[in-house]
């Protein structure tokens, strides 16, 4: 004869499936019709505001056939726009990842006065409208701006030129990496860094071998968001570039094609489809990184709370 453990002897925290009540009823007690209504309205909203616009980009872009689509993309100005976008993002993203890591490092691993002020400053680009951000650069570097006469004297063009676009992009995308890293690094604390120091590691060794590996997924996640914004930014870049031909990034090109080509919307939507594809690719990479990142956070918590 075997001994059978009565179920009430098992602790209330037991997670075994056998312990659940026999009816697989969920904790939600809403009636069925309400659940269906909620699901339909959710799908409706998603479809109307997210999926339909995306689909319309594809439909409009291919409205004139594949040849018209390819022609629109093969256009010289389109390639100029793509090149400019890649340059702006190519400079802004690496710089902002360095700034972001440095800012998060100093805000989370050290104690000093004015810390909360610095924390707030990082958020300024989020709080200020991008158009205003762009305007600020015009006011500082423009022909009639503070530094304008001096720049003109030395024959340096910033506003209505590539440097201005790069500066505006850097400014607008500044918070992404730091914002992503600060909570993570705060949760991790600096005990591991102290351990590395006691074991004889120098500052750089500690950073490369301990700090950076601990935040790599969080950093990558921040980079992806930063890149998506850098390539998609419109307002700030529109103001500093003046939208002159040759000084248009892809979003500016879309706008100018749309308003400039009254006979056909195919070119505008063809270029827009590039941004849409970028968006989808970003989402896919983001999901993968997010999954890894959550593991990193979970590991942090697991080590933080001792049994």
């Amino acid at each position, binding site marked *: 004869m075997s001994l059978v453990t009565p179920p009430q002897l098992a602790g209330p925290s037991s997670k075994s499936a056998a312990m659940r009540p026999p009816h697989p009823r969920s904790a939600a007690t809403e009636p069925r019709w309400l659940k269906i209504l909620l699901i339909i309205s959710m799908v409706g909203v998603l479809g109307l505001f997210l999926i339909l616009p995306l689909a319309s980009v594809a439909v409009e872009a291919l409205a004139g056939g594949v040849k018209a689509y390819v022609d629109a993309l093969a256009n010289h100005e389109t390639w100029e726009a793509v090149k400019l976008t890649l340059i702006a993002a190519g400079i802004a993203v690496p710089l902002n990842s360095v700034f972001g890591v440095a800012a998060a490092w100093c805000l989370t691993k050290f104690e000093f006065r004015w810390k909360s002020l610095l924390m707030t400053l990082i958020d300024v680009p989020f709080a200020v409208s991008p158009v205003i951000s762009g305007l600020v650069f015009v006011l500082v570097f423009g022909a009639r701006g503070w530094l304008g006469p001096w720049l003109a004297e030395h024959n340096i063009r910033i506003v209505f030129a590539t440097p201005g676009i790069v500066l505006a992009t850097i400014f607008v995308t500044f918070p992404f990496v730091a914002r992503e890293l600060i909570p993570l690094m705060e949760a991790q604390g600096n005990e591991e860094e*102290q351990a590395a*120091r006691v*074991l*004889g*590691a*120098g500052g750089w060794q500690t950073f490369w071998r301990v700090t950076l590996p601990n935040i790599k997924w969080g950093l990558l996640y921040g980079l992806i968001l930063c890149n998506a914004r850098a390539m998609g930014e419109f307002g700030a870049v529109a103001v500093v570039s003046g939208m002159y031909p040759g000084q248009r990034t892809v979003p500016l090109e879309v706008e100018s094609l749309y308003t400039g080509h009254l006979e056909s919307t195919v070119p505008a939507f063809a270029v827009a489809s590039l941004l849409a594809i970028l968006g989808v690719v970003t989402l896919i990479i983001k999901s993968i990184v997010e999954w890894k990142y959550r593991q990193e956070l979970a590991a942090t918590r697991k080590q933080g709370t*001792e049994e």
Partner: protein
Amino acid sequence: MSIEVRNISKSFGAFQALADVSLRVESGELVALLGPSGSGKTTLLRIIAGLETPDHGSGSVLFHQEDVTAHNAGQRQVGFVFQHYALFRHMTVFENVAFGLRVRPRNVRPDRATIRQRVSDLLRLVQIEALAERYPAQLSGGQRQRVALARAMAVEPRVLLLDEPFGALDAKVRRELRRWLRRLHDETGITTVFVTHDQEEALEVADRIAVMNKARIEQIGTPEQVYEHPVSPFVYDFLGKVNLFRGRLEDGRLTVGGSQFGAGAAGGEEGSAAVAFVRPHDVEVARHANGNSIPARVDHISFVGPFVHVLLMPKNGEPIEAALPRERWRELNLQPADEVFVEIRSARVFADDYSI
């Protein structure tokens, strides 16, 4: 390698963590810093390690007569075990232990084979060879503790410093690990200082105990010295259970109700208030009165370890706790509500300027 701390003070803002503390740890000794939280024990340990700097201009830290106050944590060659282990979460156990060797400058870094050998030796020493490829998150608390210790030992430290090494473990693992730490210390002979708030742990493991209270060291001595001859009411109270008898000094004796205790070297003027401290195992229970004994009623009996703890209620005054050997308890056949007599075998009297 001896450790000497001379006149160290440390403040964090308005809070004084250490006030002019001096301590000498002889080569090969195992010393416990024992005290309640906030007594400054962890701060002292971190100053020895170089993780914290003493207040400007105060005191110095010497390793083997060499002044290391200006050396940073890395230069001091100490092994430090953090309270929550601080293992590198993204590295395997093996990589954690190897870290201290891998970050050495090229000219003093051992080659790959040597590192591999050293790490596996250490993992064997701490009995976790089988876990070399695991990550910290996959280990139990006791296993992480061992990894932390192996990692600290890998750099061949001159001294080993442990911050609440068993604080986060459950009682059984704790007892096992502290015996094992004692054995490890005896095998390696490395000068070791550990911080604890658990008097039992300090008494069991350490060669000497420094009892800390309010930023100062109250007493330093062998477990026997601090337990049997506490120099202050605080030490008496902190190292184990204690019964208090408040009264007045008369004729060099402390009078509490009808009973008297020899006051010894308590100091204090005739007629001033004083307190007698009595350990539960110095309380004797008898069925018959004996001149000096205090009548009391048995309130509660509990069985903890080899002793039977009896809570006694005197006619007036605080409850008294007695720890009786089991045979004695059987002999007396004590039952709750029995009327008995309490005798005090030995007491230590301090002038009453201390309250618990």
